[in-house]
């Protein structure tokens, strides 16, 4: 997948009163592979809706979203599975980790599906993000900031054309946020994927090519 295009997409809840000052809603926007985008917005502007539409878990919008030339409305459930394991990744705001599994098991659940990263890479990522000591802890027992880092490692365990980040560093301090950004950039450089990050102010430190307002 080389580009994602939004053609006059507008969430169903906004259809009565379309926002006029948005760079995304009701506009035609194209995101290209290899570039980094930051979407800034106050709460309630539809950041999470935006990520959900692109990731195919919600479809309550008007307009069209195209992956290259293909309208996502015509993608079958099994093909979505294929896309989610081979080209499109996401870090959910709510993380969607499995609390009864350990941090490592959560990552392996994804990596065994894609067989993308080596076990050594995963261990090193835990160490670099400062959570090596939590690798065998059940996710339910670690802090939200630590969970965010586990989710990031899991998100990188697959081939990517685009990575959606829904407020990825909201609970990280400056130092950890910087380390997370470093890891992201390394992987992005290695694979050449595009990053679309959302933020309500605090954002992961990346060289953004474009900053858009929702």
């Amino acid at each position, binding site marked *: 997948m080389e580009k994602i295009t939004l053609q006059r997409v507008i969430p169903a809840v906004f259809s009565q009163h379309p926002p006029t000052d948005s760079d995304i809603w009701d506009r035609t926007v194209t995101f290209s592979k290899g570039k980094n985008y930051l979407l800034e917005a106050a709460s309630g502007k539809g950041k999470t809706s935006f990520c959900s539409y692109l*990731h195919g878990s919600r479809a309550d919008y008007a307009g069209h979203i195209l992956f290259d030339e293909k309208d996502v409305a015509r993608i079958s459930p099994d093909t979505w599975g294929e896309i989610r394991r081979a080209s499109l990744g996401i870090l959910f705001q709510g993380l969607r980790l499995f609390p*009864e599994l350990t941090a490592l098991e959560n990552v392996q659940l*994804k990596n065994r599906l894609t067989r993308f990263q080596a076990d050594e890479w995963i261990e090193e990522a835990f160490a670099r993000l400062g959570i090596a000591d939590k690798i065998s802890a059940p996710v339910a027992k670690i802090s939200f900031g630590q969970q965010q880092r586990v989710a990031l490692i899991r998100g990188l365990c697959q081939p990517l054309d685009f990575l959606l980040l829904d407020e990825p560093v909201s609970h990280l301090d400056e130092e950890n946020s910087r380390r997370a950004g470093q890891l992201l950039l390394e992987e992005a450089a290695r694979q050449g994927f595009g990053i679309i990050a959302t933020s309500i102010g605090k954002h992961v430190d990346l060289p953004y090519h474009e900053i858009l307002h929702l």
Partner: protein
Amino acid sequence: MNLIRKLLLYKHLSWTQLTGFFIAGLVGMGIVLFGVQAWSDVHPFFSPDDGFIKKDYIVITKRIGTLGLLNRQGNLFTPDEQAELARQPFVDRVGAFTASRFQVSAGIEVQGSGFATDMFFESVPDEFVDTKSEQWTFSPGDEEIPIVVPRNYLNLYNFGFAQSRDLPKVSEGVIGMLRLTVRVAGNGRRDTYKGKITGFSNRLNTILVPRAFMTWANDYYGSAANAAGNPARLIIETGNPANKEIARYFQERGYEAENDKLNDGSVVWFLNLLTTFVVGIGLLICALALYLLTISIYLIIQKNSEKLRNLSLLGYRSREIAAPYQALVVGVNIIVAALSLAGTLVARAFYIPFLTKIWPEFSPGGVWPALLCGLSLFLLICLLNIVAVRARIKKV
């Protein structure tokens, strides 16, 4: 995959529900398999010839009036009457009883002493004999004559005579080992044969010998004086003995039908009814067990719906998500099927010797009915469950 299994099953499995299915499934399938196996083991005994039992036979005679005493030919069927009867739409086949035209006496000799009695033989075309065996043949020069007697005779001895005198009851197998001494005389000739009782007939209330013997013996021993008589009894084969046309026709001609109520048909009918009932109950329990299993898996899926959704967002396909549930279903069903089959075989090992004891000629069939039935039931249950689980997961 074991991560998924850990995630989706172990934490949420209700062991009580699973045990419930297990027991219900075991009982249901056990009953079905046992019913089918027992039926297939016992069934051949009651219906020596499957095709035969479907049809019905009526033995007819002419009413014997006072005039019959004076007119010996009056109660015989003429060739014209036989031909007319054969043309009736309700008649499939007609066979004539042929009486012996020579003197017969039969006796039992045990260590030199014994007793003998005058008797007679009759024969019908072989296709009307209901207890045929390979021994039912005769060719001139043979020393042994196969004989079929009415089952009533045996019952009369066993339940009447032996009962009242405290004598041992004898089985058909024992009777089959007896050798009668049959003396045949006529036409200036006199010979001795061995008689062997090869079967007991419910249908034919007479002492039967093979038609081949009768034809030859009537010719060889029969005196010319009473030659070529018309038959006094006929047997007809009909598809539907309840046909009103038959009664009307018999009424018109003054024919009488011998009752043939004590036939295997009703026993087989009862056996079939009983088996259908038992197997039906077994199937019902199986269906309920299947329902229980499906419901409890639906419940687990419902409890896990958020997880299933998250897995799907991670890129898992619905068949990968369904796999642990389906594996569980197949696994439990394999155990249920294997145990029911084992239970059936164990029960069979108990009833086979018992049946062999009361019916010496009882020969059990194979175990393939239970095997086949168990396998198809297993496949059916698995298939239904797999489809149900898959459909439910797609909805989440």
